């Protein structure tokens, strides 16, 4: 599906930028990340089948920002922020192995990045069912990923 970048930008960029601001807390970094999100979308425009791509863009934004946060030195400002930075810094085996291919898989609705799942559930407040719907996994699949995250020592509990 070819993308009209300007039309997509007009419709979705404010949402993507708000997401990036929420995660990165810094306007310039958020603006850069927002552009990266649309570049990722363009990169896969021929695989795109979503009629309403807000979920996809939101999840790509989460992934892009998590990668930026991993190398960031910023200190947490709130409890949610503390959880977010803790998740961003986690380097579990799934993400080490799979993160590089996460966006490719996202477009084909294959299993998602554990860290992105964790942000949706623990920071955004999606239920397990909503998280599963968001990333195209079963609830048990999401639960299993989050168990793995907790087993690696992250102090997280189901919301």
């Amino acid at each position, binding site marked *: 599906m070819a993308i009209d970048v*300007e039309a997509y*930008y007009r419709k979705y*960029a404010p949402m993507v930028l708000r997401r990036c601001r929420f995660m990165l807390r810094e306007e310039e970094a958020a603006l850069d990340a927002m552009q990266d999100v649309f*570049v990722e979308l*363009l990169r896969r425009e021929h695989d795109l089948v979503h009629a309403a791509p*807000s*979920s996809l863009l939101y999840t790509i934004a989460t992934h892009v920002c998590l990668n930026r946060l991993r190398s960031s030195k910023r200190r947490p400002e709130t409890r949610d922020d503390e959880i977010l930075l803790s998740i961003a810094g986690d380097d579990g085996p799934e993400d080490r192995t799979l993160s590089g291919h996460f966006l490719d898989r996202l477009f084909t609705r294959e299993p998602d990045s554990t860290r992105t799942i964790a942000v949706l559930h623990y920071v955004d407040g999606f239920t397990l069912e909503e998280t599963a719907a968001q990333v195209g996994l079963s609830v048990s699949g999401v639960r299993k990923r989050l168990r793995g995250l907790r087993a690696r020592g992250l102090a997280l509990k189901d919301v």
Partner: protein
Amino acid sequence: MSTKRVPDLLIEQYALGELPPATARRVERSEGFEQRVAKIRRDNEATLARYPAGVYAARIRNQYEAEYRDRSRDRTPARTVGTLAMVLPAAAALLVVGFLLFGGLDVGFAPQADPQAEITRLKGVEPAIAVYRADPRGVGGVQRLSDGDNARAGDVVQLSYQAADARYGVIVSMDGRGAVTLHYPPDPGSVPQLIPGGEQTLPYAYRLDDAPRFEMFLFITSRTGFDVAAVVSELERQASRISDDPEQTPDLPQQFEIRSLTIRKEE
């Protein structure tokens, strides 16, 4: 009214009109629903006013072109594109140009002379084009070329522009063989939207080929949109006349302003 806070994404999707009816009704009953939607709508307007769609869509396209679509071309630096060989995506810096000649692509950025000392930035409020050349002596740095300066086949050049009040524009080159090459936008089907503000460097540097006598760079601007392919086609039609006499410039309709910079080729 539900007491559980509805995730931001669902409010966003409500505002976008992308929620299924049942979910939309649930979201409407959530605490603070109206304020949250109103806040999103206000922020949408503010964001698009501060970061205009035309400008940022062009930046996104440019970034994409630089990072992905032409990545395969990076691996074949000798490939000829029209009259010039495209050698490197150079969105970041003119410094790269100087480095190319002796550093290669795999090593990273070599220490350079202070570029500010060597590059006179485009100034003023008129649309302008600039051509920079990597130091052909291989000692690093770049040199801004002026109209009529000499260059040789094999020299690596970087193009940049300043849009000033022009909203649309193309950068093309014509050479002594009468060949026309489009440099910006990346393809004739693109919208020729210019990025306003300061100097904008094109994402690629180019290696001059062995076309004889001259290389003329044209920055053709307009305040209104136009068909890039039609302009290129018209330039191709006039190329043989200009090839015979590079003192001439192309003859285009009144909506266009033309800035040119001609490099003389040393034999």
